[in-house]
Each structure stands twice: as C-alpha cells, then as structure tokens.
C-alpha cells in the first residue's frame, strides 16, 4: 500500500501547478466557439427563418404598426446551438465567442431588432425594401 501511496504522490508532483491565470488574464475560447449571438440589422430581411428553427423558442417575432416587424432574441433561453446561424439566408445572425454573460438583471439578456417590411403589390407577401439612400445611388439623384 505504501508503494501505491508513493506513486500517487509522484503523480501529483509531476503534474505540478496547472492553474490557468484566469481571471487575471483573458482566456479566449477557440475558433468556432458558439457563444452569444449578434445580429447585423443591415443584412436582416425579416424572414423569421431563425424563429422557425430555434429549439427553445427563444426568438419572438411580432408585427406592429403597419409594416414594422420586431424580432426579439431572448438570450435567457438561448442554448447557443447555432441553428439560427445555419439557417439564415443572409448571414445576418452570427454566434460570437463572447461567453462572459453574467448579470444581475434579466433585461440585459435581450437583443431586439426592428425592421420595416413592405408589402408586394402583386402577391401581398412582406419583404424588406431597399434603403432609400441605396436606391438613389443606383437610380441617381432625380425625381
């Protein structure tokens, strides 16, 4: 038994000190880490495909005010699975490598975006129109 105890002590001594210096130094996660999500409002077309695939129903879509669509990402329920990122046709939703999300109020854990949707004259479906400034860059600054 003493030999076993000696071997155990040797294992501990050989390992030495392995503690990481976190939180005094940052400990960045590897590439491809699925952390907090981030939305680029310029790319989002309001299709709500992300809301359809979210397993925990953390994405809420409400239409209000004749053409405005509000998409709320409840990060309290988000499980960072990455399906919204996979499914988004415009690559507007991305999962960053932020993992330090501790807070004392739940209101901090929410991302809300509001996009304006127009209605197609022919088929009555909603779509996101181009920004008027971008349109004028193409057509020129004329009436």
């Amino acid at each position: 038994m003493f030999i076993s105890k000696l071997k155990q002590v040797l294992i501990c001594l050989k390992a030495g000190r392995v503690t990481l210096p976190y939180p005094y130094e940052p400990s960045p996660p590897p590439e491809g880490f699925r952390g907090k999500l981030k939305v680029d409002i310029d790319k989002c077309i309001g299709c709500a495909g992300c809301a359809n695939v979210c397993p925990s129903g953390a994405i809420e879509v409400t239409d209000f005010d004749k053409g405005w669509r509000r998409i709320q990402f409840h990060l309290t329920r988000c499980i960072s699975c990455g399906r919204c990122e996979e499914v988004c046709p415009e690559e507007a939703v991305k999962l960053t490598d932020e993992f330090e999300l501790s807070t004392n109020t739940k209101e901090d854990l929410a991302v809300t975006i509001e996009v304006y949707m127009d209605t197609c004259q022919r088929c009555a479906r909603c779509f996101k129109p181009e920004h008027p400034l971008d349109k004028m860059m193409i057509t020129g600054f004329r009436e």
Partner: protein
Amino acid sequence: MFSILEKCFKKSIWVYHTNASACNGCDIEIINALTPFYDAERFGIKLVGSPRHADALLVTGAVSRQVCPRLKTLYESVPDPKVVFAIGSCATGGGIWFDSYNMVGGVDKVIPVNFYIPGCPPRPEAILFGVAVALGLVDKKVAAEYLKEKGFPELIKQEQQTTVNE
C-alpha cells in the same frame, strides 16, 4: 445589493450547490471550477455540505413541480445575508422546457435570484467571472441591445422606448 456584498463577502464565500432538475451539465462545470485548472478555492470559495453553513446558493436547472416546495424550504434554511446564483440557461429562463406541464419555470419564479450566469452549459471561466462580478471585482460586460432600422417613416409613435445601448 452590491454594497452589502462588498462589505460582507470581501474575503471568501462558502457555497452550497443544489440541482433543481437539471441535466447535470452545469453541475459538472461547477465542480470543474474547483478542479486544478480553474481552482476557485484560491479565492476562498468552498463547497459546503449543509445550507446552514453557506453564504451563497448555486442553483442549476429549471424548477420542476416536485422540487418547487423543497427548493423554497432550502432557500429559507440558508441564513441571511445570502446570495443566490442561477447558473445555466435552464435556471435563468427555463431553458427548452420552460412551458412543459411538469415545470414551473426558471429559478426566479420560486426564489429571488441575485445573479444570472447563462450558457448551456456555461464555461467554468464564465462561472468564475460571474462570481467575480458578484463580488465587485470586475464590471459586467453584457447589456440589452436594441437596434432599429433608420430612414423609414414612423407611422405611429412607439409605446415602449427601451434604453439604447451599443
């Protein structure tokens, strides 16, 4: 709240860990925070075996119907002043099963929660960061984001104006 913490808990917090119907992922990460690589014990944080000895309660998992009364009894048995941490997405908001027939919801539906540490499961570094925020050693890094498309007419005034950040 922060001032009480700074006064009372400057030295070391003894925590009692409890699992209210979680999947064990967050519990394993909490125990991981005590192992050699992350070593929460260098801050004086220690896991105790009785809620009577504890300063802080670490709760993981969404609360089920069966656990609900027991969790309340447990909360009452921890002496004041106390801090409650809700660890993981299930404890914060109920997780994937927030509206199931046997679940009550997130932990804050049953007992008052002081700090939330979301993630599924949160990394041990995130848990250490959460405790550091609670102790006032670092500032929290997350805030609500509200983005609105500009350049389109606002037909009717908005009812809610959430604070704009970023």
